[in-house]
């Protein structure tokens, strides 16, 4: 038919579909400084908001005097709780079923808590005015240690709910108690421990950290009084949820609220929740009738808008003498700060912590989590992980190493002995999950072969002997871990946020020329959705990715979705994209059959066309069918070619991986050098290997930061110490190790394209891998568990305590 027919390979390559290293379309604007981030937005007559914040961790507010601030030229208003209370906006609901003060009413409960909101003509004047607001406080005793929160006679933190014995997740046993959540077989686990030949028990703490994206949280709110419509541009990982919440809180009908998330400068969980700044900017715009911008600075970001982890996990494993695990028991004390603002699916107050059996075949397990209030910032976000999954991975991976040490077994050997076997999938875990697919032993073997594991252990043995002879001051550590993640929240039967099921969506519209616009309910913050979703459509529909525009973040145009976090975009919206494309393809097939005058069943799909079976010269390309859809469709069929799909996943997906890290620790300085880091990830079907590798690099670097230095620390007075980039460790290019990446591919059997998600795996697996490596270095000196972060000072201190400094 055609004079020059391109080959199959040429046609496939032209599509730039799944599996190819397509260059990112986003980059064209970003490399030229033409991104469109919230703070780039400039509206006529725009005002600026800034907060007056509490210098104390716990104090009663006696008086707020804003007269000097109000007298400053350029200041329009100073909002306090007294202004918000008549509107019912001095508290806002949290995602976790608690409430959080928007502006402190009678008490402040953590340092830097929001006390008053300045509205001024420019950001400098707003900052000046914040200094002029005089607040009189009466200091109260603080609780910063979660282990003391529920002591008898402990200070009452939340007076607003002091007498409430029923919390959002059941009975509260103390006025500073948030919830008790349990899962698993308690009696069976107790029996396993009674019968156990060997047990270990360790308090494994995961310090409080912060996601710290390079762009802080910010918004512009603009209320149009004439239309009664509110537009909010903001750093929102979940813009649709923000719109629904804004409507429920403000009583503005949802169709009159337009929430737009433009380009976002990294999120990592920080930008999932709703923060007082958003509410204040909205109120300020309603009050003034002008747009109001609120941009937090870095100190505000690190000390107020959420935190992550602060999980204190007392962990026990029961096992046989030859190293078969027989039971797992974990009690978690979870420090939730002053308000329970955890960003978890509503029914999961401890997230998916029950993935804590990890990649291992535990016959029985039990987990109990107690959340407590303290005088610290609220939050509890999933910092580059699915909900509480990195805590779980750190917990089980440290505990397996401790068990190996007790048994005198190699940690890799212990893991291999207990990994879930390939034939056990789909695997029912003791704590209630059904793992979809995996070949753990193959992945582990590939990783060990790649690094020459046996040789590393021989080298380590020789180095330890040399250390004992006084010939070296370096200790070599080998960290080995195997993780199972749980991502893609999630199925409506068990996942919702404030009652909204955690599906996600895609809408695809094919224009007559075969060009495409597609919109999803998710929101990229750097993951490259504009590139990868187009690759899915390209492969499904045979139209070049370069002819496909992807749009996210505008709640007026995108179909409803729950947003991007917990590595859920590919498992949910990625699936919706494939399903919507398949609806379009089915209609295109009907049109093709009509045009080619054959039955639909006589057609077969090939790359970019439907062709007649047995007669490949007779075909219609998708591009031709797009034109036909607007030109002549078969009788009884609607014109047009578009589809929408809301995808309710049948199950989570379970990416996994094997990581190995080699460190050298100088015992005299504590300086720990990462000699080698090898990461093998299995995220199922790989959509864009270049982007996957980039995600792994970034996640490993964040894991390196957490394991080796990050901590949001509070002193005994409730002062948050060092919430700036002077103190909070973000690795530079100099410290950051070089990463070796590798993969296996085990598609998810329940996902339309077999993809599982990848963005967070490297953080989940990376943190315990670094920690195990440092611990492994000191193990032969009698050390069992060294807590993170493994910065030089702490590592030196460990060496000092072990008596190696002479």
């Amino acid at each position, binding site marked *: 038919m055609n004079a020059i027919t391109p080959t199959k390979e040429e046609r496939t390559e032209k599509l730039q579909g799944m599996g190819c*290293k397509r*260059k*990112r379309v*986003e*980059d*064209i*604007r*970003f*490399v*030229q*400084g*033409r*991104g469109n*981030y919230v*703070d*780039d937005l*400039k509206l006529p007559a725009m005002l600026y908001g800034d907060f007056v914040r509490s210098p104390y961790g716990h104090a009663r507010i006696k008086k707020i005097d804003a007269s000097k601030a109000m007298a400053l030229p350029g200041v329009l208003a100073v909002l306090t709780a007294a202004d918000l209370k008549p509107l019912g906006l001095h508290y806002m609901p949290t995602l976790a079923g608690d409430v959080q003060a928007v502006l402190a009413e009678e008490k402040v409960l953590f340092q830097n808590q929001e006390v008053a909101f300045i509205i001024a003509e420019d*950001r*400098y004047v707003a900052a000046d005015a914040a200094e002029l607001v005089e607040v009189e406080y009466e200091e109260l005793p603080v609780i910063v240690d979660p282990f003391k929160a529920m002591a008898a006679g402990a200070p009452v933190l939340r007076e607003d709910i002091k007498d409430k014995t029923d919390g959002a997740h059941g009975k509260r046993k103390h006025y500073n108690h948030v919830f008790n959540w349990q899962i698993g077989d308690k009696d069976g686990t107790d029996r396993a421990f009674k019968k156990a030949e060997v047990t270990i028990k360790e308090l494994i703490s995961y310090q409080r950290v912060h996601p*710290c*994206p*390079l*762009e*802080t949280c910010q918004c512009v709110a603009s209320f149009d009084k004439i239309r009664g419509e509110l537009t909010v541009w903001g750093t929102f990982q979940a813009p649709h949820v923000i719109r629904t919440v804004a409507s429920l809180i403000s009583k503005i009908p949802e169709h009159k609220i337009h929430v737009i998330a433009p*380009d*976002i*400068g*990294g999120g*990592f969980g920080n930008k999932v929740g709703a923060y007082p700044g958003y509410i204040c900017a909205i109120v300020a715009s309603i009050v003034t009738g002008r747009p109001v911008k609120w941009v937090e*600075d*870095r*100190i505000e970001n690190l000390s107020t808008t959420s935190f992550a982890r602060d999980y204190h996990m007392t962990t026990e494993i029961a096992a046989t003498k030859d190293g078969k695990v027989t039971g797992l028991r974990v009690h978690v004390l979870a420090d939730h700060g002053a308000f329970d603002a955890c960003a978890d699916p509503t029914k999961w107050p401890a997230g998916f912590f029950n993935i804590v059996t990890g990649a291992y075949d535990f016959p029985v397990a039990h987990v109990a989590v107690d959340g407590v209030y303290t005088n610290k910032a609220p939050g509890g976000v999933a910092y580059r992980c699915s909900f509480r999954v990195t805590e779980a991975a750190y917990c089980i991976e440290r505990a397996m190493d401790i068990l190996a040490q007790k048994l005198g077994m190699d940690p890799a050997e212990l893991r291999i002995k207990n990994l879930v076997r390939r034939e056990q999938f789909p695997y029912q875990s003791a704590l209630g999950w059904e793992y979809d697919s995996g070949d753990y032993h193959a992945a582990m073997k590939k990783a060990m072969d790649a690094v020459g594991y046996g040789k590393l252990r021989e080298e380590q043995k020789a180095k330890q002997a040399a250390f004992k002879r006084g010939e070296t001051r370096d200790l070599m550590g080998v960290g080995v871990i195997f993780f199972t993640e749980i991502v893609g929240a999630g199925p409506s039967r068990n996942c919702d946020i404030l009652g909204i099921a955690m599906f996600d969506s895609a809408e695809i519209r094919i224009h007559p020329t075969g060009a495409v616009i597609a919109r999803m309910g998710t929101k990229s*913050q*750097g*993951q*490259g959705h504009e590139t990868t979703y187009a690759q899915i459509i390209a492969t499904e529909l045979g139209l070049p990715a370069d002819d496909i525009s992807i749009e996210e973040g505008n709640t007026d145009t995108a179909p409803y979705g729950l947003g991007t976090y917990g590595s859920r975009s590919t498992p949910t919206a990625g699936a919706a994209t494939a399903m919507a494309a398949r609806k379009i393809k089915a209609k295109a097939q009907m049109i093709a059959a009509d045009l080619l005058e054959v039955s639909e069943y006589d057609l077969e799909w090939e790359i970019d066309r439907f062709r007649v079976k047995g007669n490949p010269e007779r075909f219609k390309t998708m591009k031709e069918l797009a034109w036909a859809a607007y030109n002549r469709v078969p009788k009884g069929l609607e014109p047009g070619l578009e589809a929408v799909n809301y995808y309710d996943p049948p199950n989570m997906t379970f990416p996994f991986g094997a990581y190995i890290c080699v460190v050298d620790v100088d015992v005299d300085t504590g300086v720990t050098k990462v000699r080698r880091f090898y990461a093998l990830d299995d995220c199922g079907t790989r959509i864009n*290997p*270049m*982007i996957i*590798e*980039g*995600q792994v*690099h*970034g*996640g*490993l*670097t*964040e894991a390196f930061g957490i394991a080796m230095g990050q901590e949001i620390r509070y002193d005994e007075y409730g002062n948050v110490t060092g919430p*700036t*980039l*002077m103190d909070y460790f*973000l690795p*530079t*290019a*100099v410290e*950051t190790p*070089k*990463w070796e990446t590798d993969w296996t591919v085990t598609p998810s059997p329940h996902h339309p394209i077999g993809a599982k998600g990848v963005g967070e795996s490297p953080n989940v697996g990376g943190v315990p891998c670094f920690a195990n490596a440092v611990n492994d270095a000191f193990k032969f000196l009698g050390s069992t568990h060294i807590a993170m972060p493994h910065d030089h000072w702490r590592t030196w201190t460990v060496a000092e305590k072990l008596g190696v400094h002479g």
Partner: protein
Amino acid sequence: MAKTQVTMTVNGKAVEGLVEPRTLLIHFLREQLNLTGSHIGCDTSHCGACTVDLDGKSVKSCTLFAVQAEGGDLLTIEGMAAADGTLHALQEGFREMHGLQCGFCTPGMIMRGYRLLQENPNPSEDEIRFGISGNLCRCTGYQNIVKAIQYAAAKLSGASVKEAAE
């Protein structure tokens, strides 16, 4: 607050404006000149998202008052591509080697890379890592940023460029 007149050259064009003595250069660039490519990521001069080139040096424009740039010659990310839209080798390199994700650090990173290559046209990997250590990236883990700068170094020196990011 009383305002002061400043004049400078930005991306080859003479510009002027009225600023408060305390106005930071980054705010002058972003809010008065509408050059929003340079970003603000911290309050302590650590992140480098605001890096621009001033009189032949990399400067963090959040740590300089606009008045300190009086009479200066500035280059920002908006001035990197050629007039016909052709990307600078660094811009091309960042895309080719997947040296960016969220894009927030990218303009500062590219401007730092620009000055680094002016000073050292053929840097080693360690020299690049040290050279960009005043610029933080939370997404990429730097490995591909290093490759992007190597790509640009090779291209600018006329060598054939390496394979794209693995």
